[in-house]
């Protein structure tokens, strides 16, 4: 492989605090050197990157890839293309496919399939319960040995308190976290957040407290068991307050959110737009603002794409019957940057939430720029604008809740282990 020199970029590596103009040299798949002004090796590919930002390849802590079992929605290969378009080079893959990732062989198969694309590292979650059915805990020890990064039932809440207690307790023995979809199941039979909008649209509502309630319960179970919980796609101020408080008390509690919850509010479902039907549902503006604050103050540990691929047959239905979930891979970076442009987040903070912090959550060797480490990189023009259009997104899934949105932040190049996979 020829050397690549990315020249004149603003290189930001939140892990080390590096934020300076300079060059970066890729040799034999690794970052050979980076600094103010590097010599240009003979025959190197030169990428001129003035006014652009070079950061570690993004680490997405939460995506459903459709494979195995739902290949009509997305495949590992198509998801890898969509991910690279947003600068993502590592994805934590949800286990609730068909079959669910509840067997060590499936964990290995998903990781191997990622490697085979040459574009992406797939870090599989193991199922928290067998077949993600919410009955009996899965083989955490064997799954962990095979490479599972943590355990979750994906879009399903681990409902019964006794089961969650056992999961937290048993996973602790293997140093693993339980990742929870925090929504009290007996209150979650709805299509939108309960309130005036759901009432006006005649949609069954999910009360906003369904999230905080489950978070409060699981924090109590963490105290009981000494286990570790990570709350996925947290969307309400009440839940974030509980998490903030638990962190202050030193409990092993972490969380992520996803772009829809800091970029959109429930008005996006107006006119029965099923692409904006998500789980958890979009919230009122006050909750969106609470999510933004929690990103800025560090309560939220990571921003995940929360990619849930759906096809037209899943979505072209009356709202209450349509499948929840939004495509998120291709828009992860741009929607996050909107918070930087608005002044709510610093650029370094935003990049950290997409790289080193999610990597640290799961102990992944990714999300940083360091000499001798694989060259997983993302080069983007922060101010260049484009329009998000369902139908024109990379990858198979087109169900973006951001359809029609004009946005700033264009990825110009993505490198995976030194190979240019996008741009």
């Amino acid at each position, binding site marked *: 492989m020829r050397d690549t020199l990315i020249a004149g970029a603003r290189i930001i590596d939140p892990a080390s605090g590096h934020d300076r103009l300079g060059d970066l040299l890729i040799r034999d798949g690794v970052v050979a050197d980076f600094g103010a002004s590097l010599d240009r090796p003979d025959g190197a590919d030169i990428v001129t990157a003035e006014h652009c930002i070079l950061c570690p390849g993004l680490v997405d802590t939460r995506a459903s890839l459709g494979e195995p079992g739902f290949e009509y929605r997305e495949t590992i290969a198509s998801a890898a293309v969509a991910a690279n378009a947003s600068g993502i080079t590592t994805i934590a893959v949800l286990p609730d496919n068909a079959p669910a990732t509840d067997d060590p062989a499936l964990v290995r198969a998903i990781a191997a399939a990622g490697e085979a694309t040459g574009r992406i590292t797939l870090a599989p979650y193991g199922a928290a319960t067998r077949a993600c059915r919410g009955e009996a805990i899965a083989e955490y020890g064997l799954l962990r040995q095979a490479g599972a990064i943590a355990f979750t039932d994906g879009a399903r809440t681990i409902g019964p308190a006794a089961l969650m207690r056992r999961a937290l307790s048993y996973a602790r023995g293997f140093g693993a976290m339980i990742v929870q979809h925090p929504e009290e199941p007996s209150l979650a039979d709805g299509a939108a957040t309960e309130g005036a909008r*759901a009432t006006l649209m005649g949609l069954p509502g999910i009360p906003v407290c369904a999230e905080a309630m489950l978070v409060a319960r699981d924090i109590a179970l963490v105290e009981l068991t000494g286990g570790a919980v990570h709350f996925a796609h947290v969307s309400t101020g009440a839940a974030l307050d509980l998490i903030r408080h638990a962190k202050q008390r030193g409990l092993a509690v972490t969380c992520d959110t996803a772009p829809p919850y800091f970029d959109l509010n429930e008005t996006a479902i107006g006119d*029965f737009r099923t692409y904006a039907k998500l789980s958890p549902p979009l919230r009122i503006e006050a909750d969106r603002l609470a999510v933004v604050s929690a990103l800025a103050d560090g309560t939220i540990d990571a921003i995940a794409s929360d990619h849930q691929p759906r096809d037209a047959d899943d979505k072209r239905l*009356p709202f209450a019957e349509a499948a929840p979930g939004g495509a998120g891979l291709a828009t992860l970076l741009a929607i996050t940057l909107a918070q930087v442009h608005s002044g709510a987040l610093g650029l370094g903070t935003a990049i950290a939430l997409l790289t080193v912090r999610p990597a640290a959550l799961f102990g992944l060797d990714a999300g940083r720029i360091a000499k001798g480490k694989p060259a997983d990189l993302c080069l983007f023009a922060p101010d260049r604008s484009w329009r998000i259009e369902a139908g024109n997104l990379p990858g198979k899934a087109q169900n973006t809740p951001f359809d029609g949105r004009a946005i700033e932040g264009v990825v110009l190049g993505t490198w995976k282990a030194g190979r240019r996979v996008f741009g």
Partner: protein
Amino acid sequence: MRMPTRHLLGIESLHPRDISALLDLAESYALLNRSGKTRRDVLRGRTLINLFFEDSTRTRTSFELAGKRLGADVINMSVSTSSVSKGETLLDTAATLNAMNCDLLVVRHKSSGAPALLAQKVDAAVINAGDGMHEHPTQALLDALTIRRHKGTLEGLTVAICGDIAHSRVARSNILLLTAMGSTVRVVGPPTLIPSGIEQFGVTIHHDMADGLRGADIVMALRLQTERMSGGLIPSAREFFTFYGLDAAKLAHARPDALVMHPGPMNRGVEIDSQIADHATRSVIREQVEMGVAVRMAVLDVLARTATPNA
């Protein structure tokens, strides 16, 4: 008049002046109907399809009669649950209807927003004849016409809507229409049947019938779906009737000339007492049915005009 949109999906999209104009036109059709005349030229050559995914007798019949009195070719399609289980989707049905070149499509569906979805996919003007818990605009219009004929106006009236507000599309459309036209609206029912956030629509909430009906000009009882009881939202029919069933004692709290309304079909002895439902001077329930035909004639007429430029 012209409608602001090509379809009638809900009261939400109507301006008070559209509502007034529709009611004026409906009033003239009510007089025409009483005189026994028809105007078969209005929709001559037009095709109206009644597409009902949910059982209905009175609404479907009312639209059928309205269409026929205006000269349209009317076709009734009841989409049974069996064809749903065959896998035909709502949009497959839409594509089929589009191929038939229908002009006016009247839709009832159990899911909120289904007519809006169809409206995006068909060329016909779509009329929402009730979708889930969302809207039932022609019901609200016919209720308004009935009230206006008796009280002369909608402005300044106090209307109490009683019973299962949470699951009622009739309640939603009525609240939107009546508040837009200057009525004061109260909703009365047990807290489990009052939807969250309803006070943001400019209504007051009452859990006691005496309190909710006091001084009201209009009392509307809503149908209580029996499945609400199996769902545990109220403990029993007799408990509901005792506290929220509209009977003479509760009606006595309203104004002496208060009108009693019900969108039908009634559960006698559950949400309304027979003595009240059949009361010769207080109950206008049968007149509501009559006004239903006139209102639907007005809606079909206006939408057909809106759909055809220069007509």
